[in-house]
């Protein structure tokens, strides 16, 4: 019984983190972006610096009419947001926040994460096709091509860490991490983070929803709660990407003085801030520049990192 209770507590923590952290990141984005652009951002909802803005947004979304266009494929249109959202929740189960503090100890954890996150691309294609809107189809195609191109450097950089640690378990990787991995895996970390940003379709990689070209891409026809779920998927994606980068490249819970979970949270939020900062600082890439960056920039860099990791590791052994 105690065991079931233990698992239940872990699951509840994961679900709460999944619903809460994206909201905090979203609020942080509102405020940080506003201040970087010499604005104030939300100030009224909830009183103190508009802290309840996103809750108010959520309530508003939940009350909105759910419009499904007459020409759309209703069933596929309806479940596309779930396909985009649920993988991010499932991935959280293997991300450790402290020694032993993990939802489920999956031996192939790293590979599990990459495989499950790869499913999300179907959500974009389904949403784009089922909307029966030309702009959505174009957005869906762009999204799919982008996710596929950037999945590769992501996978290669992740496997470099797996090589360094000699295990695929995320907990094992974080345990083995030492400070000198920072310079050793630096290229891989940058490649992983940039590719992850592109996977999230955040600016400067937001061609699939480039509003000046194709309205809102795959999300053009979505309204109300389904649109909100897509947004939740985006911010949950920021949390997952930051957490993964923290665990793989920054040592997860390792750090002086403070307890492990606090260190994990600090690293996650610092990385999430970088995601927001990048959005404010860089203009959108063009579609061909995007593909070029993946194939001529990131993939060779990731291969270089693989070679570096392999040679150092074998020479050490």
């Amino acid at each position: 019984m105690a065991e079931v209770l233990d698992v239940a507590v872990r699951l509840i923590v994961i679900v709460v983190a999944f619903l809460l952290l994206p909201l905090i990141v979203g609020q942080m984005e509102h405020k940080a972006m506003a201040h970087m652009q010499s604005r104030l951002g939300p100030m009224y909802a909830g009183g103190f610096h508009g802290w309840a803005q996103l809750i108010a947004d959520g309530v508003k979304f939940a009350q909105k009419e759910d419009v499904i266009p007459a020409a759309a494929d209703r069933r596929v249109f309806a479940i596309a947001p779930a396909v985009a959202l649920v993988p991010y929740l499932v991935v959280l189960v293997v991300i450790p926040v402290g020694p032993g503090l993990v939802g489920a100890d999956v031996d192939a954890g790293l590979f599990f994460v990459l495989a499950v996150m790869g499913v999300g691309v179907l959500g974009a294609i389904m949403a784009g096709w089922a909307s029966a809107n030309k702009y959505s189809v174009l957005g869906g195609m762009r999204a799919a091509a982008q996710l596929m191109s950037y999945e590769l450097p992501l996978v290669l950089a992740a496997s470099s860490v797996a090589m360094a640690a000699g295990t695929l378990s995320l907990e094992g990787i974080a345990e083995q991490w030492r400070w000198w991995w920072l310079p050793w895996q630096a290229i891989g970390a940058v490649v992983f983070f940039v590719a992850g940003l592109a996977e999230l379709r955040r600016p400067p990689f937001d061609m699939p929803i480039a509003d000046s070209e194709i309205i809102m891409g795959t999300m053009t026809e979505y309204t109300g709660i389904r649109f909100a779920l897509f947004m939740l998927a985006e911010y949950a994606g920021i949390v997952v990407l930051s957490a993964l980068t923290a665990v793989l490249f920054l040592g997860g819970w390792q750090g002086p003085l403070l307890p492990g979970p606090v260190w994990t949270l600090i690293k996650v939020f610092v990385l999430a801030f970088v995601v927001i900062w990048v959005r404010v600082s860089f203009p959108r890439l063009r579609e061909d520049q995007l593909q070029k960056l993946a194939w001529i920039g990131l993939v060779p860099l990731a291969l270089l990192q693989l070679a570096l990791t392999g040679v150092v590791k074998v020479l050490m052994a």
Partner: protein
Amino acid sequence: MHIVYPVVVSALLFSIGVYGVLARRNAILVLMSVELMLNAVNLNLVAFDVWLRDRLHGGQVLTLFVIVIAAAEIGLGLAIVLAVYRNRRSIDVDRLRDLAEGDAPEVSPQSEVSPGRVAVGEDADREAGS
């Protein structure tokens, strides 16, 4: 695990794939049915690997190789299908009979075009400029 369960599932899956290959006209659907048959084979390989407790993991390694080759095959197959579509405006395997013996009904290259469609290939670069 009784080994008969996986092998029965795999046999049925293979038969469904056989039906798909024979009954479908659209070339992409035929490719999908081929994938079903390959997956039936993979299930068998994994089941026998588990049953025979192969110390070299021959079954599972071969499954990985089959997955890799299937991915290469489907990509090449689709590239051919796209090339056929570009030239014929149709990917209907019943009507691609140029190599048939005897006097098969000729399909005119433009018969399947409907208005408003843009060709695959370099004419379709409209979107690139957007």
